């Protein structure tokens, strides 16, 4: 039987943070994730590195944690953080009294909030509503790339011996006399079931923590709380722009590279798997968003997406927006199961702190006294300027920095060598995100790449302007060549699955120029590539039953 000391359940930021922390302290650890990494809230969020300003009134402990971790993240994850700064703006319809409370809250929490004049605010953010904005402050918010940070956490963990298995679902716990002996898992692709022996398991499954708890017979107060977000195809803002009012839906804009994310809503859902989004949610976000930016609807929407925050609900506690954004650690020895811990709640900004506290408890049990070093040591070594400049000879210089931070030192070196020796590998698989064939090939070979969507999350293919129109075919073909035998050969399925993944986020925003893009996708893949076979869906004459109406009502008579 495979054996390790600690099994970490869940490949989100918290789980990955724990894997890294334990590995750095010399504890043998293995992380299992039932899907691909960061499939939950760690990628399905707005990518805001909180200054803490948002919690300055309601939850000053969380606010203080945010500002401290914000500074740490900038230091250890330099290439994951875009230090764009943040702005809080109060609109004419917002409560003036709240502004006073907020200014005091920031001061009390150690968050520097600098008041600026409206002229300055409009100069910094020219699209702000002249009509509604009444006051503005600058805060040290930033944007953070959840995907990139996660891959870097893995690279760092692996360097210290940390192990990882994706598409591996926990299906049960092996206990003897109330003591944990191992974790039973299933491979999602092969269906193979087996046990991993361990002394300790950490349930860091986020929104799924309740389900994992049930497998061990313990009750965990976690409420999946769905947040919906919209990604725009342009950089609408220069700073993270927050509404200065009591936290609510649709009041944060975060710039990321060439796009902007607007979010979020907050809705309790029974199932963390529910990442559906609807036209109604999009409409409601736009409506609130255009109070701050009046011309919001003129920007092309790329897609919408949703994720579930794992809100911790202590017995009798509040839910939704009023629930605490804090976190909790439960040692299930109190429930009669020695060796199992659960960590739940919190937020991306404070993942490192959560991991540190969790690992302190684990290490105490293991009599390991090595101190935590995750706040001091950078996640990865940065690619040198020399290597980057060398790479610029072979591919678009705009893409070099992005590729360097995505790939890290070793992979970047290999990719650049390949680009140098084989000019054909320089072709761009994804023009929107500047991803070369050499990079896609490198990632196809990675031990976490099982489907094209896994390659997408690591390389950003298909995540830009055209949403996979051109790269779906190319990526499926390269993957068929380089990927794992069991899944890669079925190139048509991989291609359709990849485009279907994009479609999910496009459907609720299917208007304006997004309609144009969609008709192009369908025309390429349905007509030119015939990916939907002719034999199984011959359109019968009765297939067009839906008769359209005009806007004034009714089909023509």
């Amino acid at each position, binding site marked *: 039987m495979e054996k390790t000391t600690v099994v970490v359940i869940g490949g989100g930021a918290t789980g990955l943070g724990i894997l890294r922390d334990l590995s750095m302290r010399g504890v043998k650890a293995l992380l299992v994730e039932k899907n691909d990494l960061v499939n939950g809230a760690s990628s399905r969020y707005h990518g805001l590195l909180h200054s803490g300003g948002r919690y300055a009134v309601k939850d000053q402990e969380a606010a203080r944690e945010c500002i401290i971790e914000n500074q740490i993240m900038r230091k250890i994850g330099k290439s994951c953080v875009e230090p764009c700064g943040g702005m809080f703006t109060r609109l004419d319809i917002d409560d003036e009294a709240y502004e006073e409370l907020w200014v005091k809250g920031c001061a009390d929490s150690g968050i520097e909030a600098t008041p600026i004049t409206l002229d300055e605010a409009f100069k910094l953010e020219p699209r702000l509503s002249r009509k509604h904005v009444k006051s503005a402050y600058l805060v040290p918010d930033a944007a953070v790339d959840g995907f990139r940070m996660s891959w870097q956490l893995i690279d760092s963990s692996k360097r210290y011996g940390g192990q990882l298995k994706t598409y591996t679902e926990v299906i049960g716990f092996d206990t003897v006399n109330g003591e944990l002996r191992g974790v039973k898992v299933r491979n999602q692709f092969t269906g193979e079931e087996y046990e991993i022996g361990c002394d300790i398991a950490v349930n860091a499954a986020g929104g799924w923590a309740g389900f994992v708890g049930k497998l061990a017979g313990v009750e965990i107060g976690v409420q999946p709380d769905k947040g919906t977000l919209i990604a725009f195809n342009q950089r609408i803002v220069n700073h993270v722009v927050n509404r200065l009012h009591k936290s609510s839906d649709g009041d944060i804009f975060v710039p990321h590279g060439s796009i902007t994310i607007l979010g979020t809503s907050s809705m309790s859902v029974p199932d963390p798997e529910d990442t559906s989004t609807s*036209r*109604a949610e999009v*409409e409601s976000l736009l409506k609130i968003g255009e109070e701050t930016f009046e011309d919001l609807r003129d920007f092309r929407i790329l897609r919408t997406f949703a994720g579930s925050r794992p809100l911790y609900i202590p017995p009798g506690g509040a839910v939704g927006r009023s629930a605490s954004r804090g976190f909790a650690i439960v040692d299930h020895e109190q429930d009669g199961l020695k060796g199992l811990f659960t960590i739940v709640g919190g937020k991306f900004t404070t993942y490192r702190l959560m991991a540190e506290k969790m690992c302190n408890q684990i290490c105490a049990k293991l009599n390991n006294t090595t101190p935590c070093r995750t706040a001091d040591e950078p996640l990865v070594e940065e690619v040198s300027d020399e290597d980057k400049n060398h790479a610029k000879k072979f591919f678009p210089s705009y893409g070099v920095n992005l590729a360097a931070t995505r790939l890290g030192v070793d992979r970047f070196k290999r990719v650049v060598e390949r680009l140098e020796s084989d000019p*054909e590998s320089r*072709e*761009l698989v994804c023009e929107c995100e500047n991803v070369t064939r050499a990079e896609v090939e490198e990632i196809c070979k990675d031990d976490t790449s099982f489907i094209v969507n896994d390659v997408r999350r690591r390389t950003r293919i298909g995540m830009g302007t055209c949403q996979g129109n*051109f790269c779906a*075919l*190319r990526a*499926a073909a*390269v993957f*068929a*060549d380089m990927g794992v035998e069991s899944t890669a*050969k079925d*190139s*048509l399925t991989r291609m*359709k699955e990849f*485009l*279907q993944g*994009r*479609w999910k986020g496009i459907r*609720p925003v*299917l*208007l*304006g120029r997004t*309609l*144009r893009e*969609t*008709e192009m*996708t*369908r*025309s*390429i893949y*349905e*007509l*030119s*590539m*015939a*990916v*939907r*076979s*002719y034999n199984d*869906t*011959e*359109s019968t004459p*009765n*297939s*067009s039953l*839906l*008769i*359209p*109406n*005009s*806007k*004034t*009502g*009714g*089909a*023509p*008579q």
Partner: protein
Amino acid sequence: MKISDVIVIGGGLAGFMAAAVAVDRGQKVSLLTYGSGSLPLASGAIDFFNAKAPDVAIKNLPAHHPYKKIGLKACDAAAKFFCDVTAKADLPYNGRLSAQIPIVTAVGTLKYSCLVPESMNASNLAAKKKIFVVEIKGLKDFYASMIADNLKKYFPDKTFSVAKLDLNLLGGRDITCMDAAQNLTGNEQILADGLKTLDAGNDDAIIIPPILGLDGNTSRAAIKSQLRAEIFETTCLPPSPPGIRLQRAFMNYLQKSGVRIFENSKVIRGVIDGKKITGVVVENAVREKIFRARKIILATGGFYSGGITMRDFDNPQEPIFDIPVFFPTGAENWSNQQLFSDKPQGFSMTGIFTNENLNPIDERGEILFENLHVVGANLGGCDKIFERSAGGIAISSAYKGAIL
């Protein structure tokens, strides 16, 4: 002020076809185009309907379907006219409405169409012994082993061979099929010599990306005669040489036939007199200009080409004449959960409804403009991509609109 018999608005397949039919009937035609239409995106084949016998399927369609307004007679005549025009332009097409012809796609599936360029007609593929799939060094978007792997599912008993030719294509940037086709024009021998090295025999087939030039059949003819095996072009990702060949063939034909073509002419509104449109206002960089005609053909396309737009949910517009646009109401009818679905996509059925003369009508069935005929992807009531009817509707509605 320009006066003609017919103004055709739109430089896509439908607009070209309408202009060609009208000029053929002795009319003075002005064609106003803005942008390049969707032909560079298209496979080059003309799909009529996803059924074994498209003509039978078309006959049985429900009354609101555009084909029912067009009629099978116009469809047949349009197919014939289309083949005549393309033949004259040295871009021969094969086929008819009562059957489907297979072509090989760039992912290795078979696509079936009624009218296909001779260079893509893969009818004989089934009779071949060995199939060579040939990729070109440095050419993007053509993955021979994926094509062979997927094609094997249709022909499990055949021998497949994957080869790679070096045509010295490597340049400073990525090379698409269009670049290769351009490069090969007048330079065909290098490809012929490369293909000869495969040693493919009389009973074999060679599948290549669509790189046989951008003008008609010239490049193909130069190579074909030197090879024993039959050679087939596939479809490709845009920009698509077979679509561009068709675009060029029509443009040449129209120019030779005396159609006055005004490119970069964005029509912004009509000059309306009751139920008649007496002219259209064109905006270019310098000023607004009025073009007048007895008859107007609207071929500006659907959502893809901007002939129909939608800024807000449940509010699609026809931007030139503000003709009522019919659409499926409500989020649940707008799109399907699956992108590649087993039923039509609601949004794609959005468009203008017409009477049998292709005059636009409102929800009471009243004709809005007597001398305006709506053709091509402007027409609503069916999902042309799902049905695989886009090309057929484009040429047959254009044909009918032009002869009325």
